[in-house]
């Protein structure tokens, strides 16, 4: 066991993001999240979804990269088909760059296709962002190089031209420093809360794009002790197979321990 996670008061940033994501998933003002899909390399959203489910909410989870027992029999294609059918209520997307219109860039910086710095690529974002009923954006790093005025390349657009078939938009953006809400009608973010040790000014300094902010800025709620216990216990149990490295780093647990 890692000594760093022994006490509930010692909240890891990933745990805070997971709890913030869980609150957004359950937001009563948003359309219901009956079926949530989580893409590749998304351990924090996966943790948030398991937290929602282990908290007793009967949500259907489709975890794309769960090696065994996943719900699909045609791999990622079934996820995209499900989303095309309108059956995926919520998806998560990150971004190498994210701008104030909620455009995301997973391609790279500099000349196409990322001559300055190449990111892994757009994966399903160009489809999912338009076809899922809603999307929550997340990115741990909250800095001017990630949160930019305008992305170098658009993997998936935050808003679409009139007439373009689109089911949903970004509901919010969760980072290592704060939570933003997104209003697609205005194509603009509003700061919703700042994590502990952050302030209106520190968020403004870390963010390259313009946004609205209330005064004062509310503090992001801590995960409750129950939530922390769920995250470190049953949530981690579910994630060990898919995200062994994440579980080791955040929860101090290893897959071999679980298997033993």
């Amino acid at each position, binding site marked *: 066991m890692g000594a760093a996670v022994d006490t509930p008061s010692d909240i890891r940033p990933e745990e805070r993001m997971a709890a913030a994501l869980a609150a957004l998933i359950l937001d009563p003002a948003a359309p219901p999240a009956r079926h949530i899909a989580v893409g590749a390399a998304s351990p924090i959203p996966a943790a948030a979804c398991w937290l929602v489910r282990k908290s007793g909410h009967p949500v259907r989870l489709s975890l794309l990269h769960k090696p065994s027992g996943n719900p*699909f029999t045609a791999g990622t294609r079934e996820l995209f088909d499900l989303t095309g059918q309108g059956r995926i209520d919520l998806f998560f997307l990150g971004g190498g760059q994210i701008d104030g219109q909620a455009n995301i860039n997973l391609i790279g910086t500099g000349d196409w*296709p990322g001559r300055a710095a190449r990111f892994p690529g757009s994966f399903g974002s160009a489809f999912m962002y338009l076809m899922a009923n809603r999307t929550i954006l997340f990115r741990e790093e909250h800095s001017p190089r990630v949160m930019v005025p305008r992305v170098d*390349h658009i993997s998936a657009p935050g808003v679409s031209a009139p007439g373009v078939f689109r089911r949903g938009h970004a509901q919010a953006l969760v980072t290592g420093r704060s939570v933003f809400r997104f209003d697609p009608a205005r194509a603009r973010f509003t700061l919703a809360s700042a994590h502990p040790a952050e302030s209106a000014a520190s968020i403004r300094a870390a963010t390259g794009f313009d946004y609205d902010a209330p005064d004062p800025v509310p503090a992001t709620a801590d995960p409750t002790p129950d939530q922390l216990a769920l995250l470190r216990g049953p949530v981690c149990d579910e994630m060990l197979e898919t995200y062994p490295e994440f579980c080791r780093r955040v929860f101090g647990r290893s897959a071999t321990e679980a298997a033993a």
Partner: protein
Amino acid sequence: MPILPLDRLAVLVPDGALLALPPDNSLTPAEFARALVRAGARNLRLLGVPVSGYATDLLIGAGCVASVQSSGVSLGEAGFAPRFSAALKAGTIAMTDATCPAIHTMLQAAEKGVPFMPLRGVLGSDILAHRADWKVIDNPFAAGGGDPIVLLPALSPDIAAFHAMMADTEGNVYVGRRHELATIAHAARRSLVTVERIYDGNLLEDERLAAGTISATYVEAVAVAERGAWPAALLDAYSADPAHYAEYARLAKTEDGFRTYLDRYVRRAAAEAAE
């Protein structure tokens, strides 16, 4: 349908072939990629279905690759794909970006024998702006028009390669729940398949196994390659090897380190096997 030694399977891939590869979580033909390196494959045009990982990075590092079309190239939890990133920076490979469902759709069009298929979404993405081969039309079924939709051309890989659980002597191959592999095989002109083992019987005559079987109709040749997906996982047969991914990611950061990796895991393995 012949069952060949692995090195004989690798030489069936001609230089310049459009080679479709599934990603690391879906029957990736990792050992086949190592055999292609040993065989000195050249100018391959790789297609990630729909994304790319270890096998693609390895082939790029070994100088086997002219171009990549994919929706993402990464080593998963082990991070970015180092040889891909270096080659892209050096300009030694051409990159065509796509988005996952577009690659599935282009293969489904080939599977169905139609010249194109539509896909929702994608509009407003710069991927579309860089794809001269993708078209936007006004949905002919929308009353009043004004409903743009993307049309994607059929894409038939010259060769699909993947690592299945088993093959029978007819050439039927078992991929279990990974039905998307069937679409790759259907869309490709030829499929080359490595397997863990040969099944004694006809996979299509066992109702349980038939559900996860791709017909020999689509399979040109098979080779046995035990643990042939390693370091990736294979269904419920074995798990991924994160330590090896980490070692690869570390070594492949540099050209020299990558050479060390090749000597240690690609070339030496073959030399030992030949002894």
